């Protein structure tokens, strides 16, 4: 699976609902009927910040993610992109 491009803008899909949970969050896609478990509250912060951030990298930075942790979050965002939970912003 190719990694999500951190230097592009990304948005939460408009058909996705976010439900915060003590462990992170549940994302439900009303179009695909897929359910994603975010097992980290920092990842939830990233997902919530995506729409306002110019790039996914900026959203990660705003959530306080260290450079050394970026690959882990990039993989998580790639998983969400593969299932259309997050979509690349049209430029």
């Amino acid at each position, binding site marked *: 699976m190719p990694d999500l491009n951190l230097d592009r803008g990304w948005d939460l899909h408009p058909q996705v609902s976010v439900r915060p949970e003590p462990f992170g969050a549940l994302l439900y896609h*009303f179009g695909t009927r*897929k*359910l994603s478990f975010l097992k980290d509250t920092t990842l939830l912060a990233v997902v919530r910040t995506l729409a306002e951030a110019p790039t996914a990298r900026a959203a990660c930075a705003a959530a306080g993610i260290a450079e050394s942790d970026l690959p882990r979050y990039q993989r*998580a965002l790639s998983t969400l992109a593969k299932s259309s939970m997050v979509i690349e912003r049209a430029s």
Partner: protein
Amino acid sequence: MVSAKKTSPTEFGPAAPEQSVGFDLESDTLVEEISIDGMCGVY
């Protein structure tokens, strides 16, 4: 839990801790996914 009858995406409040889904938080994977077929999904 998530209602399949919902038609407009919204953000809804957190569940009570006893309603939380349990899984291995030690895993390096930050995201796990399931598909919901029919009226309910089993994880």
